[in-house]
């Protein structure tokens, strides 16, 4: 176990090192940050002074050396726009994104499992066919279109839902303010969560259905039936548990992808999270923030994958985490 975690920590460090090196090497194509910080009419001389002051005129290796030196002390640079350490900025934006991803995950889990199971048990039922048809359409509609449609229907036409932002959030701890403890907050998170889940939901319904179908045809399910067990325990105890194994693996990977989709969702709903922050950082050539964000996301991926592997080990003790052959 400890060996496994050590391996993963090393892996995370490697991932972040490679990302930072890559980001630095493409730094020039990220644009000139002084353009966002100064007037068009500012003279070339002043612009050069500013670049000097920011250390942008130093050789790339020197800049990278400086960056690594600071990074080892836990300082990933200062955002040009927010004028705060990039990690602080990310930590401030993280709760909003996590809450959005969490709300979307809840929707996905509570909808996809029952629907997927139902479709697997009753493949010929009209509702199953209907669900499958809708999921095909759902998977092919881009998330921003879903988001705009939701805004148009529920905010503009019906006037039921707020169209942007987080609303009145309740402060919990540190930089974490939550949407889940106030009615206004919940109203604000519903549409972004629905939009974000819309892209994953069809995928999960199909996945749960396919896995469940396979399990239902397996020998042990037949055996359980032959033993005379009623439908309920067969489906829920024996079949569903084994269905969840691949779903968790895919789910872990999908959570990572979901972070990418939050960029779209957050920018349509002006959700003050990490994704929107990143998009803005790219627009503003806020290079330290771009690099810190990508490194952070790389770190997040490693963490999520580690958690998935651990979870996998708990559900199926046959899995060997360290990868030794026995």
């Amino acid at each position, binding site marked *: 176990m400890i060996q496994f975690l050590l391996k993963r920590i090393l892996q995370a460090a490697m991932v972040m090192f490679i990302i930072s090196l890559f980001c630095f090497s493409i730094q020039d194509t990220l644009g000139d940050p002084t*353009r966002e910080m100064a*007037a068009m009419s500012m003279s070339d001389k*002043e612009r050069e002074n500013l670049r000097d002051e920011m250390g942008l005129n130093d050789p790339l290796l020197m800049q990278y050396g400086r960056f690594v030196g600071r990074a080892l002390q836990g300082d990933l640079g200062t955002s040009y726009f927010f004028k705060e350490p990039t990690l602080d900025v990310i930590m401030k934006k993280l709760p909003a994104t996590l809450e959005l991803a969490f709300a979307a995950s809840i929707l996905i889990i509570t909808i996809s499992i029952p629907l997927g199971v139902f479709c697997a048990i009753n493949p010929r039922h009209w509702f199953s066919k209907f669900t499958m048809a809708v999921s095909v359409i759902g998977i092919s509609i881009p998330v921003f279109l879903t988001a705009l449609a939701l*805004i*148009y229907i529920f*905010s503009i036409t019906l006037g039921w839902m707020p169209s942007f932002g987080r609303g009145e959030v309740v402060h919990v701890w540190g930089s974490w303010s939550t949407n889940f403890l106030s009615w206004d907050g919940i109203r604000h998170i519903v549409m972004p969560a629905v939009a974000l889940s819309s892209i994953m939901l069809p995928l999960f319904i199909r996945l749960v259905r396919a896995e469940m179908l396979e399990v239902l045809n397996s020998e042990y399910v037949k055996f359980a039936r032959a033993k005379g067990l009623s439908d309920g325990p067969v489906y829920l105890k024996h079949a569903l548990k084994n269905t969840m194994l691949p779903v968790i693996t895919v789910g872990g990977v999908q959570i990572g992808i979901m972070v990418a989709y939050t960029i779209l969702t957050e920018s349509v709903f002006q959700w003050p999270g990490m994704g929107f922050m990143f998009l803005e950082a790219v627009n503003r050539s806020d290079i330290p923030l771009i690099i810190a964000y990508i490194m952070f996301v790389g770190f997040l991926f490693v963490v999520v994958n580690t958690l998935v592997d651990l979870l996998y080990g708990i559900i199926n003790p046959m899995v060997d985490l360290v990868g030794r052959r026995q």
Partner: protein
Amino acid sequence: MKNRFLLTTCLVMAGLLAATTASAKELRMAYDADPVTLDIHEQLSGGVLQLSHMSFDPLIRWTKDLAFEPRLATSYERLNPTTVRFNLRKGVKFHSGNTMTATDFKWTFNRLKQSPDFKGIFANFTELNIIDDHTIDLVTSGPYPLVLHTATYIFPLDSQFYSGTDANGNDKGAIVKNGASFASTNLSGTGPFKIVSREQGVKIVFERFADYWDKSSPGNVSSIVFTPIKDEQTRVAALLSGGVDFIAPVSPNDFDQIRNSSKADLITMPGTRIITFQMNQERRKEFRDQRVRMAIVHAINNEAIVQKIMKGFATTAAQMSPPGYLGHNPNLKPRYDLDLAKKLMKDAGYENGFSITMMAPNNRYVNDDKIAQAVAAMLSKINIKVDLQTMPKAQYWPQFDERAADMMMIGWHSDTEDSANFYEFLAMTPDKATGFGAYNSGNYSSDYVDSQTIKANQETDSAKRAEMLQAIETKIFQDAGFVPLHWQNLAWAARKGVMLDPVVNALNFPYLGDLVIK
């Protein structure tokens, strides 16, 4: 003078009446971005100037028809060719409670001279002299016609508030671009709104300043919640769903939706930002031939671009100076004529055309990439094959600095609201030492334009100056020094009951202190 006094008295009375009957009015506004800093000298940009007009006041300001209106100066007069005297308003308070005096102006002026963004505008100003507590003289190095234009940028800062050192031992008055400073996170001005709270990129809350000097202002907004909403469709949706009361900018694509809505009004007016293409004569020998440049100007149907791509949301241009500027020459008309363009190409010996590269941004100006595509298609009619590349502004400006393509798009708004600014940056021969022609990527060069622009900036007689500026405009027109497209219009939208129309102006800084909400 007597009349004015009477008028002022009436206005004050009316204002007092209004003030006593007004109830709390909140304005929830959404712009595409929030000001990057609270230090109004840190960056010269639209967002920061909007903040300047909300939380500070200038000496004088522009009216809707581009005239001057006294604010913190009650009157002004030219004493001699290099000195203008301003009499300051008495009894003006800063948000901190300090009283505004001439000292604050001197301190502000010195700080402006230090600001990398603003020092260019104040380059011709040598000093600000205090005559007494409420009188100042602005002195220029030579006769300078734009003293009043520049005075619109003098928003006094509370010198006592910004003096001394902060908790980290740094000077409170320091202008810091790269990193946080006291001035970029704290504010004390004389303006109608003081800042209650601010979360960068998320929200700023303003509250009306109880001791605001302008009691005659009809404005009844008691608080403002400013939210940046980046996505233009989300911004419109927020307005139409009642989430906010006032939005800007508004994309032409959303006009119909707002016009058809019973909940909101759209307000548009001609703007002063010119959109152009420049033809690089250094990169392409073909462009050195005036007939080729002329052919290109004649081949581009900018009226069609305004109608089809901009949906009428722009004014077709044939010159840099928009109507209302001294240099605007009403005789210069757009000159689309494809047959003439073909003939000019033939005369120049390029009947079979040639291939060029073109670059334009895709998120800087309204519909910039679509305009570039249209221009490229129009040029193909005179056999000029265009290899077009569009990119986000973050990538575009470094390319522009390198003059990376044969034709490049550039939009320009004159900081001084004066024609000469266009010529200085876009038309004069590029010169690293003087900084002239900094955005003249075409390398267009004319001795006449160079010398006359400098002369016009020493001419204080505005009739003579107008003549000079218009002559420069005509010369560039005849030389076909660049491709004029249009002046972008401005648009705002507000829910019904927000009386936005009287407070908007061509500079795009609605005077929200005077805004009335019914």
